[in-house]
């Protein structure tokens, strides 16, 4: 029964485009899945290991640019480019990690923010590679057949399925990682780093490995962005706001849980898209308001509170039986 719920959710997710034909709702679904992916990936480091990064846009942007440049320069189809972009994101996260993890707490957070800004400036100024502020454009996507049927890239459905695969892969990786030995080490690091070292945990290595996994999925989402919108520039894929909104989604949904960022993404992104209809940056006011309410009334986030409520109900049911 308990195992049936996630399986059912995945089935419903993949069946959704068969029922939902309205492009607005499909687009909303794609955006929600992308933010859920970003939230889950960020949460591995921010929620489980307690290392709050304000710079995940660095990996998102690198993934997006890598996917784009691999296609435009080397002709590598973007669906492979997304995975390669993820790997490149993971690769650059290693030196960034060794550098930033020398710092703790707020100093770490500020260092990551600085790294993301540096990446944005590099992308803005490295004209020969990135075309600078002009940005890069995919004019047409190569044809591809899916079991004999040519895929129509003008429709939303193929993108929905692609993003759904990325999101489900992220969830599975997060579930695996947090239940592994590394997951236990991350809890120790979050709780007290000195104590974690004192019992023999290589805290730097654990954090660097986790950052690499987190960066991989973040960069993958960035690669998807490049493919979906077919255009990017430095401000579009390296914005500070992306780093911050990712944090919001994890905190509002529930730090240190896999389900939390999914709920956070559904809740925040849906409202944000509705706000966007009326006034441009209005969703940020809404995010800020949600953040304040959650910190004040639901410090473990929406899912954290819901999980505790469910556990208590189950306990009561057991007591009554």
């Amino acid at each position, binding site marked *: 029964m308990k195992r049936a719920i996630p399986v059912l959710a995945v089935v419903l997710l993949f069946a959704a485009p068969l029922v939902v034909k309205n492009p607005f709702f499909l687009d909303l679904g794609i955006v929600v899945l992308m933010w859920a992916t970003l939230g889950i990936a960020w949460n591995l480091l921010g929620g489980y290991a307690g290392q709050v990064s304000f710079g995940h846009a660095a990996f998102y942007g690198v993934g997006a640019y890598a996917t784009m440049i691999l296609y435009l320069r080397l002709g590598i189809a973007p669906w492979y480019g997304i995975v390669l972009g993820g790997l490149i994101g993971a690769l650059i996260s290693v030196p960034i990690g060794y550098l930033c993890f020398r710092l703790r707490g707020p100093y770490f957070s500020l260092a990551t923010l600085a790294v993301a800004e540096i990446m944005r400036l590099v992308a803005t100024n490295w004209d020969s590679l990135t075309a600078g502020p002009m940005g890069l454009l995919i004019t047409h996507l190569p044809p591809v057949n899916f079991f004999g049927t040519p895929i129509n890239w003008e429709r939303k459905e193929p993108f929905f399925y692609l993003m759904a695969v990325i999101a489900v892969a992220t969830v599975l990786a997060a579930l695996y990682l947090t239940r592994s030995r590394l997951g236990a080490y991350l809890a120790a690091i979050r709780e007290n780093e*000195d104590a974690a070292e004192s019992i023999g945990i290589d805290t730097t290595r654990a954090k660097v490995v986790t950052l690499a996994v987190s960066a991989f999925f973040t960069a993958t989402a960035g690669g998807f962005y490049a493919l979906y919108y077919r255009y990017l520039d430095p401000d579009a894929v390296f914005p500070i706001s992306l780093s911050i909104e990712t944090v919001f989604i994890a905190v509002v949904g529930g730090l240190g849980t896999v389900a939390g960022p999914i709920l956070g993404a559904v809740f925040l992104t849906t409202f944000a898209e509705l706000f966007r209809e009326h006034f441009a940056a209005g969703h940020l006011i809404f995010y800020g308001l949600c953040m304040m309410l959650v910190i004040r009334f639901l410090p473990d986030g929406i899912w954290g509170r819901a999980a505790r409520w469910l556990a208590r109900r189950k306990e009561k049911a057991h007591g009554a039986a």
Partner: protein
Amino acid sequence: MALLELQNVSRRFGGLSAVDNLSFSVAPGEILGLIGPNGAGKTTVFNLITGFIPPSGGDIRFDGKPIAGLKPHAVARRGVARTFQIVKPFPHLSTLENVVLAALVRNASRAEAVAEAERTLELVGLSNRLHTPAADLTYANQKRMEIARALATAPKLLLLDEPMGGLNSHEVDGACVLVERIRASGVTIVLVEHVMKAIMRISHRIVVMNQGQKIAEGTPAQIVQNDAVIAAYFGKRRA
């Protein structure tokens, strides 16, 4: 051969010599007391041995191999465990989980780690607090939990930083028995402590520090009569 050997170890913080040219060794199976007035550098010595602070100079050997400059986790994996003067539990995790984590690091399976954790928690007398979050334990119990956590790493050498701080007289007696039991199980112990009655009772040898330097070394009986020690604690006797 000595299990732990410090040779001319120094640590300067800017112009201050927190530890100055310190040498001493610890024999296997020994309980060594490390005492001195506040600010003598005792906790810094622990931080130097366990890698939390790299030494400015000198040599530290454990089991004959140099360990100075290693990261704390690397020192821990070689068999040096410690507790902290100001406790550092994993506050939101249960008492059991705090200790399980320490056992898990040694590649034990989860089941083995839990068994090991339950065993060490029983040794320190916390069997009835397994599922209490560490943050909710009394301070004295948090100190016990830290000892259990350190033991769960299966150390050869255990560094205890004021394990009896804040304990009442009855609890100090219990702690003395515990330390002796740990030693009897084959773990060598270095003990920083201000509770004199405890340190005099259980130490085989005592090293006395003052202002970063070693001012005396010997058996408890020798130390209580040492003029330099008396001067450091009470000031110079008026002639």
